[in-house]
């Protein structure tokens, strides 16, 4: 019973994400593409919730859906008229794109289906918030305070760099 409910939710999410992703790379309006991307990102957050990684799902919604999509909308509205002409290239290039992505997908699917992954350790416990916090801030083995600090400095540098690049002369 639980399996079928999980499977139902997963199939719904997977169909939504695949359809939204295809729409995001084929629609000719940039605002629609951004909105479809938002659906894909929300679906990914749903997948993280299904893996019982609730903190990761929250981060996904806050940073990706809340931050990055707003940046995209901001850019689309700021650039405005120049952005509506999203056109595809020549037929040859389109076919080349289809061929390349389809063959890549075929190879990846073949490998995924024919490889035995050791994936029997899944639990529904999730990760408690205290474990996440102490691993993120700890200095012991398997802790990530250095990465955390480097990432914060990177974000600061990006912020300064983005302001420097984008401001008016």
């Amino acid at each position, binding site marked *: 019973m*639980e399996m079928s409910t*999980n*499977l139902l939710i*997963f199939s719904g999410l*997977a169909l939504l*994400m695949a359809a939204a*992703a295809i729409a*995001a*790379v*084929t629609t000719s309006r*940039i605002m629609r*593409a951004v909105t479809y*991307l938002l659906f*894909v990102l929300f679906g*990914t957050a749903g*997948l*993280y919730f299904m*893996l019982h*990684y609730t903190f*990761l799902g929250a*981060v996904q919604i806050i940073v*990706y859906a809340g*931050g*990055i999509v707003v*940046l*995209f909308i*901001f*850019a*689309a509205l*700021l*650039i405005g008229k*120049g*952005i509506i*002409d*999203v*056109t*595809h*290239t020549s037929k040859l290039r*389109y076919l*080349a*794109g289809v061929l*390349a*992505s*389809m063959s890549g*997908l075929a190879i990846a699917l073949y490998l*995924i*289906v024919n490889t035995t992954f050791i994936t029997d*350790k*899944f*639990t529904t416990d999730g990760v408690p918030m205290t474990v996440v916090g102490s691993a*993120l801030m700890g200095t012991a083995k398997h802790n990530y305070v250095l*990465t955390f600090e480097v*990432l914060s400095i990177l*974000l600061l540098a*990006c912020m300064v*760099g*983005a302001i420097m*690049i*984008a401001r*008016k002369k």
Partner: protein
Amino acid sequence: MTIPAQFYLILAAVLFFIGVFGFFTRRNLISLLISTELMLNAVDINFAVFNAYSHPEHLEGFFFTMFGIGIAAAETAVAIAIIINVFRNAKSIHIKNLLDLKH
């Protein structure tokens, strides 16, 4: 009983190659960036799934996904700043008009 890990991996592969397709066929800087985000997002799903299904006692994939999301945010901010600057200078973000770096 849970969903097999392969289902997640197949979904991530499909999303990744939709992003690749968009990257090949789109001709607009913002659309290219959207395709890149799709690919990054698919990779993040893989990290989280392998962590949850193969090594739930460690949290490597969990934190890789989290730092990946953070770096994606940084990358998008800088890329959009560059795109806005390109638009201001070249009056277009269509790729066929952006030939100034070529020579």
